[in-house]
Structures are given as C-alpha cells and as structure tokens.
C-alpha cells in the first residue's frame, strides 16, 4: 500500500468524522427547534432557559441521557436487546456519505479540484434504499427483544408500516431515475443545474413524484401523521417502551437522523441539491465563494424540509393503523405506478 492510497483513506476517514459530527450537531439542534416550533404552534414557548434562548438544551438532554439509570428488562434476550438500537442508528448514519453538498471547487491552496461528496459511486441511490431497508431490523428486533407484548405489537406494526412505504418510496424515485438516466446522486444534482440553476426536478418534471416521495418518507421515518406505532397515547410507547437512558437516546437519535437523511434525499433529487438559482452566474464556476453559497443553499433547503416535518407534527392528527396501511398500499402504490407510466410515456414521446 503506497502513500497515495493511504493518504486518500485517511482523508476519507477525516471527511466521514467531520460529516458525522456535523450531522449530530444539526440533529441535536433539530430536536431543540422542534420543541420550540411546536411550542409556538401550540401557543407556548419551548425550552428557553438553558443557554441563550435554549441553545444549550441539547447538551443538557445529552447529559441527562448519559446519567440516567439504565434499566434492562429481566427476561429480555440480552444480545438482541443491545443490538437493536445500534442497528437503527448505524443504518441511519450510513446513508450520509453519498450526498453531494457542493459543486466542484478548485482549492487554491492545494492545487486540486475536489468534488464535495464523501463517496461517489455508481449505484448511490440503490445504496440509500438498501441501507434504509436494513434500518427496519432495529425496530423489529427492539420490539421482540423487550419481552413485552405491547412492544412486540408496536414493533411489528412499525416495521410493517416501514416496509410497506419503502415500496412507494422506491417507485417514486424511479421517475427521477428515468429522467436523469443514472443512479449516481452527484450526476443527478449536476443535471439539475441547467437553466442557470433553476432546472430543479420538482418544478419541471416530477411534481407527482415529489408528493409521493414526501408521503412515503414521512411514513418511513414514523413521523406524524404516521406515527401510530410510537405515539405515547397508543401502545404505551411502541417498540421503545422498555428502553431507557442511552439506548432510548440512540433510538431517538436514529429517528431524527432518518428525518435528516430523508430531507437530504428529497433536496438532492427534487429540489436541486446544492443548486442556488443564478449563483453560478454571480460567482463563477469552481470558486470557493460559489461552493460556500451552494452549501448554505443546500442546508437551507434541508432546514425547510425539517421545518415541514415539525409543522406537520404540530398540525395534523394521526392515522389509525388500518387507514395508514390502506393509504400506503391502495393509494400511494398505484399512484407511484401511474407516475412511472406517465414519466416513461413523456420521455418516450421526447417531451421531457
């Protein structure tokens, strides 16, 4: 192994560590933002004591989770009980590496051109789908290993919901794949930079696909209005009833990281990724300023989606489980198939 590959491998590790830290910070502040925005929607203030305006609240929560007593149910299967939150969090974090968060930038001090993505490979979109499929195990195994029939029911319901909506999620993405002709996320974002950065897929090409994707994504991440399996007024707390302290914090974290991941995927595929309209004309291709503006634009779009999630949580009631499954199988799945059909027809007729 020569120094070149060693340096590349070390750089990858550094990039992954930086991405991991950034994601954890953003997710921690998403939790805080959710509590404040929900408070504003519900006519009260959220947590605003710790730090200026509540900005140190996530760290206080983290300290609480670390110091809480760790209760393990007596007759649970120990190995699976400890494995389940690890699987959930790992699957949530592993999708982070394929999203491009900026254009190609010429670093002047290093004399090289680097693409702002951690791992660029050909089947990136399938990789994301695969890793989210593996994330179902965290929930199913958590429900089973708690040795609690309410947890089991909640875990089975939650995983049945997740695998049902994975189908319409995948099918909604096929419209985008047909459109761009590639599974490579970097290339998909590049293709959306036509027309001075306004060629976002949602606007011109895939409004129906975006709608289906959004519904499926909200159901995938078990958020309101699809959060019956884990709502506190339903089956106790669903699959994470018997989890306390740090393991519960891992599940909580996994849910918010999933939210973040899904928002990133929606931004990348439908909202143009790092494309800010007219930014390329203003700043020039490959400059550091253009890259900075693009990264900030990317983060703004992700924050818009996170705000949408929080807004939905504060506004809508939740579906009953049979209504949820009906919606997934009898409405979203045929609609996704219709979307593929329409997209394929329009491409065939050279309209798109």
């Amino acid at each position, binding site marked *: *192994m020569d120094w070149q*590959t060693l340096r590349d491998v070390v750089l990858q590790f550094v990039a992954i560590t930086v991405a991991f830290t950034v994601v954890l910070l953003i997710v921690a502040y998403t939790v805080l933002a959710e509590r404040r925005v929900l408070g504003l929607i519900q006519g009260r203030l959220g947590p605003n004591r710790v730090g200026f305006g509540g900005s140190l609240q996530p760290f206080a929560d983290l300290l609480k989770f670390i110091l809480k007593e760790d209760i393990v149910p007596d007759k649970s*299967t120990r*190995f*699976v009980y400890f*494995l389940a939150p690890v699987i959930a969090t790992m699957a949530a974090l592993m999708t982070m590496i394929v999203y491009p968060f900026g254009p190609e930038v010429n670093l002047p001090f290093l004399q090289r051109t680097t693409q702002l993505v951690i791992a660029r*490979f*050909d*089947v990136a979109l*399938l*990789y994301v*789908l*695969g*890793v989210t*499929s*593996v994330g*179902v*195990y965290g929930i*199913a*195994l958590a*429900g*089973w290993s708690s040795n609690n029939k309410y947890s*089991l029911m909640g875990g*089975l319901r939650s*995983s*049945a919901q997740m*695998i049902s909506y*994975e189908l319409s999620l995948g099918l909604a993405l096929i419209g985008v794949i047909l459109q761009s002709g*590639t*599974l490579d996320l970097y290339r998909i974002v590049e293709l959306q930079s036509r027309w001075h950065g306004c060629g976002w897929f949602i606007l011109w090409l895939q409004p129906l696909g975006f709608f289906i994707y959004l519904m499926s994504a909200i159901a995938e991440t078990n958020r309101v209005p699809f959060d019956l399996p884990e709502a506190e007024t339903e089956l106790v707390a669903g699959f994470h009833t018997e989890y306390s302290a740090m393991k519960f914090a891992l599940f909580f974290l996994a849910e918010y990281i999933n939210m973040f991941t899904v928002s990133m995927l929606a931004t990348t595929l439908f909202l143009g990724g790092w494309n800010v309209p007219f930014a390329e004309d203003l700043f020039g291709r490959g400059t550091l300023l253009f890259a900075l503006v693009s990264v900030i634009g990317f983060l703004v779009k992700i924050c818009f989606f996170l705000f949408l999630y929080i807004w939905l949580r504060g506004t809508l009631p939740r579906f009953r489980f049979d209504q949820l499954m009906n919606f997934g199988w009898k409405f979203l799945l045929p609609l996704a198939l219709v979307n593929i059909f329409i997209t394929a027809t329009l491409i065939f007729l050279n309209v798109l």
Partner: protein
Amino acid sequence: MLALLFILFAGIAIGSAIAVVAQRNPLYSAISLIGVFISLACLYVMLAAPFLAAVQVIVYAGAIMVLVVFVIMLLNVEQEERRTRLSFLVPAAVGLAALLIAEVTFILYWVQVSPVTPAGNVSDTGLTASIGTGLFTTYLLPFEITSILLLMAIVGAMTLARRTAELPPGARVVPGAQVLALNIIDPTVPLDDTTAIEAHTTVEVAKILGIPDDHDPARRD
C-alpha cells in the same frame, strides 16, 4: 490490501454461516444470516458488481430476511433442543469438515493461476447500464418469465395465507359484515353457540334486532 479485505469479508461470511447452523435460537440464526448477506454484498463490490451488491442488500437482507424475522416473531418459535440420538456423528462431521478444508487448501496451493485478472472497480461490466442492457436485449425472455414467476408467487402466498371461508361454530364475526355483540345491545340474550348475524347496513341491523332506526329513509317522522 485487497487480499486483506477479502480475508476479512470472507471470514465474516464463513463465521456467520457457521453461526447460522450452530445457533439453536432461530432468531439468532436469522441475524447471522443477515451478516452473511451483508458480507457477501461487500465481496460483490470487490468483484466489480456494485449493482448486484446493492440489490443483494435490498432484496435478501432487506426484504426476505424481514419476512423470515416477522414469521419467527409471529409464530413465537422457541429454541431447538439438543439432539441426543445421533450425537456420535458430530466427531465424524468435524473430521469430514477438516478433510474438506484440506482438499480446498491443496487446490488453492497448487492452482495459483487464474485465467484473467479482474480489472477491479474500473471495469464497466457490473455497472447498472450494462446489466440493464443485458436484461432488456439478450435476456429479455428470462426477465419476462421471472416477472410472471413473481406474479405467481404473490398469488400463491396470498392463497396460502388466506383464512378459509368456513367459520368454526360459535363464531361471532363474519368478515366484511357488521360486527354485532348481541348481548351488549340486548343483555337478556343468552351467550350460547349462536351463529353470527350477517348484515350490511344499519337498516338491516335494526330490522333484525327489531329496534327503530334513525337512518332508515323509509321511516319519516
């Protein structure tokens, strides 16, 4: 470097496979099998087949094993007991396994020349485009037959899992009809093995029970 990665993934695959067979709890076997699938997916990536690696994780680890784990959880499968009858065969099995490993090592030691060295990740054999081209031009017939096979599997699975039309006696629920708990509406009805009432509208229900119904359009007050 590649050899190290190969030894790592192959070792995890073989270790997990032995765990699948050796574990007595079927849930642990299922988890070990997921480990086998994921390490095989990593081996496929090393063999310049990234599309197949992703499809392996999505289909095998993400769909088939979820189905198996669901079935294990729903049927509440217990651990197997250790068999005592044929336990003298275990040393024989270990001996034969050692023989297999010896044969494999012998072959690996003597046959060290492979026909073509792989081009690693630079080749475009395993990319999505070439698989798509192959599936839709040369091998279109197997592709279409596979889709019919999947349709047959869906119909077969639904038929097998369907409840039979005959209800056992004493049933109080007829699927698709109004569910009535007779003795809640009329507490004087004795709880015996009467068959369920099948009715489709509230008007019919009211007629059967003999109570006035507010939704009946024929009844205008």
